[in-house]
């Protein structure tokens, strides 16, 4: 087995609900359980997919992996060490690409300034000239012309902006990149261009990705392994091929069926995603699950399997009765 580059161990993130004027009088403030006890490992050179619907906590998990937010509980390890020990060094090795290329680029800076910023922060490139050369090199590597450095973000198309966002993440030669829905704000005909660019860069620069997406087809095409999240927990992890052919968790099955439907058919999971403030007891999916039994409402299913392949469902752990 390859050594894991990123290891999340029982990571949780709870947010306190915005304080109402009299909230202090209540004994305990309600909490949003955005991420709840997630363990995940990403091997060196691997593309790990993270799928789930809105409110599943997948974007929060991405930010926790980069310590952009401190986890409420659990630990994050990077290359076998605690990244908190030298956060600056960690930032040089772990980067992020954002969903909305409009919002993720500072509108009052030129593309050149945006790309030079990481270099300045980490004191890369001794001189102005050296930095300018590096910016030009970055632009070319993501398929833009070097003279784009003088442009403002609003002068670029959505696809070009996302290329700038990718170039910024690459500026300080990281080993690991969290990609938070990098193609979902783009037009259909541009999505494939960006997906191809991401694969090409990953192979050429030996990068490791955590790829967050709701597009199952793209995840299958791009990723080695996939983790499926529901209401803050990982319900199933497995190879992309296995999850595509034979998902085991009922939620993963419903997600795949909805994503690959050829005829208009109901998703088979009625009702609504419950509130993460008061998730259902036991398995959070049980109120919508066709296979649920009494045990599902009582007991939180433990994740069965190893770090590579696992599922958290009573169906595979002694039955639902």
């Amino acid at each position, binding site marked *: 087995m390859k050594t894991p580059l990123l290891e999340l161990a029982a990571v949780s993130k709870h947010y306190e609900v915005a304080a109402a004027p009299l909230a202090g009088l209540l004994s305990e403030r309600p909490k949003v359980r955005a991420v709840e006890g997630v363990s995940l490992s990403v091997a060196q050179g691997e593309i790990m997919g993270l799928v789930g619907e809105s409110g599943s906590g997948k974007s929060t998990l991405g930010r926790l992996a980069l310590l*952009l937010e401190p986890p409420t509980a659990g630990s994050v390890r990077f290359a076998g060490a605690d990244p908190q020990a030298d956060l600056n060094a960690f930032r040089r090795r772990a980067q992020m690409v954002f969903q909305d290329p409009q919002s*993720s680029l500072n509108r009052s800076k030129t593309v050149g300034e945006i790309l030079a910023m990481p270099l300045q922060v980490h004191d890369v490139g001794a001189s102005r000239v050296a930095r300018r050369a590096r910016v030009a090199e970055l632009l070319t590597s993501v398929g833009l012309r070097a003279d784009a450095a003088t442009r403002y973000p609003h002068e670029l198309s959505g696809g070009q902006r996302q290329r700038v966002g990718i170039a910024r993440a690459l500026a300080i030669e990281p080993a690991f990149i969290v990609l938070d829905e990098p193609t979902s704000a783009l037009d259909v005909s541009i999505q494939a261009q960006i997906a191809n660019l991401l694969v090409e860069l990953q192979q050429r620069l030996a990068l490791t990705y955590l790829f967050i997406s709701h597009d199952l087809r793209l995840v299958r095409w791009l990723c080695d392994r996939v983790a499926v999240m529901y209401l803050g927990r990982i319900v199933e992890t497995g190879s992309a091929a296995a999850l595509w052919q034979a998902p085991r968790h009922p939620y993963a099955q419903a997600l795949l069926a909805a994503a690959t439907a050829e005829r208009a058919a109901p998703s088979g999971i009625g009702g609504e995603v419950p509130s993460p403030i008061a998730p259902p007891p036991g398995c959070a999916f049980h109120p919508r699950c066709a296979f649920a039994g009494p045990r599902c409402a009582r007991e939180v299913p433990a994740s069965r399997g190893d770090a590579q392949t696992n599922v958290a469902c009573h169906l595979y752990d002694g039955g639902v009765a």
Partner: protein
Amino acid sequence: MNRGKTIGRLLGIVRRDPLAAAAFLFLLLLAIAALFPEQIAAMSPNRPSRLRLLPPGDVYLFGTDQFGRDIFARCVHATSVSLLVGLTTVAIALLLGVPLGAIAAFRSPGKIDSGIMRTMDVLMAFPPIVLAIAVVAALGTQDIEIGPFTVPHITKVMVVIGLLNVPKVARIVRASVLVERNEQYVMAARAVGASEARVLFREVLPNCASPVAVYATLLVATSILTEASLSFLGLGIQPPQPSWGGMLADSRTYVMSGQWWLTVFPGLLIFLSVAAFNLAGDLLRDALDPAQITRRGDA
């Protein structure tokens, strides 16, 4: 932001909008009058003469007042005081208001944010003129000696008006930073490893410059008006030093008896300079946002 482009856009707007051009021209004239009062007005603003209450004419462009002083010279010399008060008070308000508002927004929600903003709310709750009157009344209209330093009365006036404007600036800054804080480029800068100070001052604040600059320009107008009100009430600039508000106060009794030039010229100057600063503020808003023009073009 690219300064050359902003200036280019500003020139473009001035060319398209004659009213804006007039406003800028007027502000330019005010600035010249403030910097070189002696060169512009030949007469002394304070020397009385026997030629009292002369109507506007060739020698006395704006006429003379009840002490025979040249109104034109007084108006010109008052310009520097009004502009000085307007600009200094806004500078004070920006100096304190920008960091306070920015820090409050960056620490929001939390104790620091509520601490700063509640203090601002308390300051805002005072009617500005009444508070200014109270402070001036408490400190007197004389220059104050603090150890070896002499604090002129005008400095007190500027500090008071400036402090009263801090909450307004802080609120504008806090509101814009709160909006900007949620943009993904802030997260991107943090992900790259930029320090909080760098994120706040180099990434976020430049994007708030446009609303703040616009507001500051409008605030210059309000401050000029506040100073004029205080001087009118006898609490601002002290006679014999000329000020627009003070000139208005001195000429009150002549409005009814037909000597209109005593009130009209200082009044007109207050009106025009306030209007010009307001117009300039609107212009600045259009000129400062590089994306605005293109964004409007998106169908």
